[in-house]
């Protein structure tokens, strides 16, 4: 149980992140339309081998930093690559679950473009406005008496 409280605290903070985001409605950002030059099939393998899903979900929709609907740092290939290279390269004392740094040695440009191509294939799997389960939740709350 190493550093149990720090561990818990960070976990709680990460867990609370979606709730914090929830506090103010997120704006849904449409997917970028910039050119894609990489190979999405190769990118898919990289997405798994680099463990991107750990934070971004298997389909880029869930987790601490979903892509779909936000597309931060993903507007273009070059923006993405610049972001990957620009992460901090000094480890903090407290463990961090932030986005890691990806140097060119670790993730060459061609691979980064493949990865980008795969991420761009992600689409929303959200149901329509009238999903029966979700609508029932809101309807039940509305009908509650004060």
């Amino acid at each position: 149980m190493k550093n149990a409280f720090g561990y818990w605290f960070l976990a709680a903070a990460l867990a609370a992140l979606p709730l914090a985001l929830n506090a103010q409605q997120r704006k849904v950002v449409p997917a970028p339309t910039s050119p894609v030059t990489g190979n999405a099939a190769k990118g898919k393998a990289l997405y798994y081998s680099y463990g991107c899903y750990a934070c971004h979900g298997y389909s880029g929709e869930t987790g601490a930093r979903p892509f779909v609907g936000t597309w931060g740092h993903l507007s273009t290939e070059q923006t993405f690559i610049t972001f990957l290279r620009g992460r901090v390269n000094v480890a903090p004392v407290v463990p961090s679950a932030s986005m890691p740094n990806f140097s060119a040695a670790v993730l060459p440009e061609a691979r980064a473009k493949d990865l980008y191509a795969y991420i761009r294939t992600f689409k929303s799997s959200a149901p329509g406005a009238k999903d029966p389960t979700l609508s029932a939740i809101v309807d039940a709350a509305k009908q509650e008496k004060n």
Partner: protein
Amino acid sequence: MAKSKNSFGRRGFLKNAAGAAAGAAAIVTGAPQAKGQTQATPARSGAPGAAPGPTEAQLFREAGNIQPPVEVRKITRPGSDLMIQAVKELGVEFAAANPGSSFEGIQESVINYGDPPNVMPEWITALHEESAVTMAHGYAKAEGKPMLAVLHGTIGIQHAAMSIYQAYYDKVPVLMFAGNDVDFIPAHTAHDMAGMVRSYTKWDAEPKTVDEALVAIQRAYNEAITPPMGPTLVVLSSEIQKENSPNVRIPAYQPPKFPTIDTTTARDLAKSLLAAENPRIAVGRLRTPEGVKRAVELAELVGASTSTAATQGPMSFPQRHPLCGPGADTKYDYTLGLETPGAQVSITGPQLAAVARVRDTTNIDFGGILKPSEFGRRGPVEKSAMPIEADAEASLPLLIEEAKRQLTPEQKARIQARSAKHAQANHDAHVAALEQAVERAKAGWNASPISTARIYAELWPLIMHEDWCFASPSGFSGGHNAQLWEHNKPYSYLGGQGAGGMGYGAPAVMGAGLAAKARKRIVINIQTDGDMNYAPGVLWTAVHHKLPVLSVMHNNRAWHQEYMFIQYMAGVRGRGPERAIIGNTLRDPFIDYAKMAAGYGMAGEGPISDPTKLEAALRRGMESVKRGEPYMIDVITQPR
């Protein structure tokens, strides 16, 4: 450990019986009984190789004169019967233990004492001492009172150590007995048994007599339930458990005195609440359901909007009470905190640090780095202008009484009007927040593996009209209950681990299951896979004791927190994250939790990774649990 002077344990009995037999032989033969001759040791002949001659005892037996050992004492009222009666009178419903010889007296009393044989406390079979104590931890969070965990000597205490530490940090009352069998297996005993966990137990004792033990049990109970609440331990030697105690009486129980505000303070606080145009009450974690009732009574009496910690843990203000929420006006002119900071005044019980300083005999400084006053379970603490060190729950009756006494008809009318406005505003705020939460839950709704938000969203319509308790920590599975569900009972959500240690979830859930069983309640467990593997034996306990627990695996096949840490570390060191799976994932092979549950006799299904199949599985699970049969659904999920 010092033995009782009049002790008559198992070994004492055997020793005395042997002595009696030898003594009888000596009387019959007339031979003098020399010191050290009580053992039937064959006499050596002087000639090498010669057969040893028979002893007097052997000769006596050969002659057919041996008598059965005289029943020198009949145990009519063993000490452990009284100990269990004392526990019963305290209202303790369950005693959980993994079997151990050092408490055989206690165990025999729990299962056989009385006519008809005892049923309360009910003996709960745990497969690990850590599970026994953590079950007591979960039970206490659900009910606001202790159950008993019984530990076997040094080895049982050390098995339980982590769970004791966790209960201590969570300020949860847990009553523990440890058996001490001095003469049996040396490795299982110690001169100061409780010393191993003293730094993180609130109180302990090792009574020497049955009388002392009964006093110690009552004191341990009282220490456990007074703030800061915590685990307490009574070490009971096997000898006093078995000692005949026909004339011992259980002392009359004296409930503890809780630190409360004085009448002057109560008068001032009531006056301030009633004089305020827009008062607010911030409610943290109270001790018992009674405290929650009192907090509701006070809020209604003074028409204060309230904040709650019910989405973070048990024993707080009902989340959907009409007064709970931001209220019609968020410019509060007076805020009272109950076990949480308030802008003007907060009534909060003694801090854990006050106990820790005294009890930390190892000088390890548990939690010293984290300073509980700054980083408690409620996160960074705001300062109140006037902190009052008293138990909020115990102070509430006095405060309510004062408020009732001071309340004028004009104030009453104003309060009614204000309360109605708060109710409408809070209802609207809740619906608006829920609509936003539902929008967020749509992300990944139809993705496979299944999103954690979908698990919570699909569960809610199935439980919303039931009496439910969500007993597993929800932090690692997204905490979606906080906004999708409504936490209106003191036990709606039992919160986190206490000290952040994994392995708490599954056993704590089963403890909540014990509380639920007799109360026709159901328990929901959204079970992380990492946690499940610490003590899977609790699945058997759930089946064996028919606990109404629905377990839904958050099976992401990894410790994702650590996975992300290592990825980050590898990144900053320029080495890449490809090998971060090493040591952080549960693959090769994947674990099949439905099969694991089946192995322990639990019904279940899965693995399920198709989101369209989730709802039907949850329905089947609910049907099973309502019949009193625990159920396991293995759901392959998104990482978070």
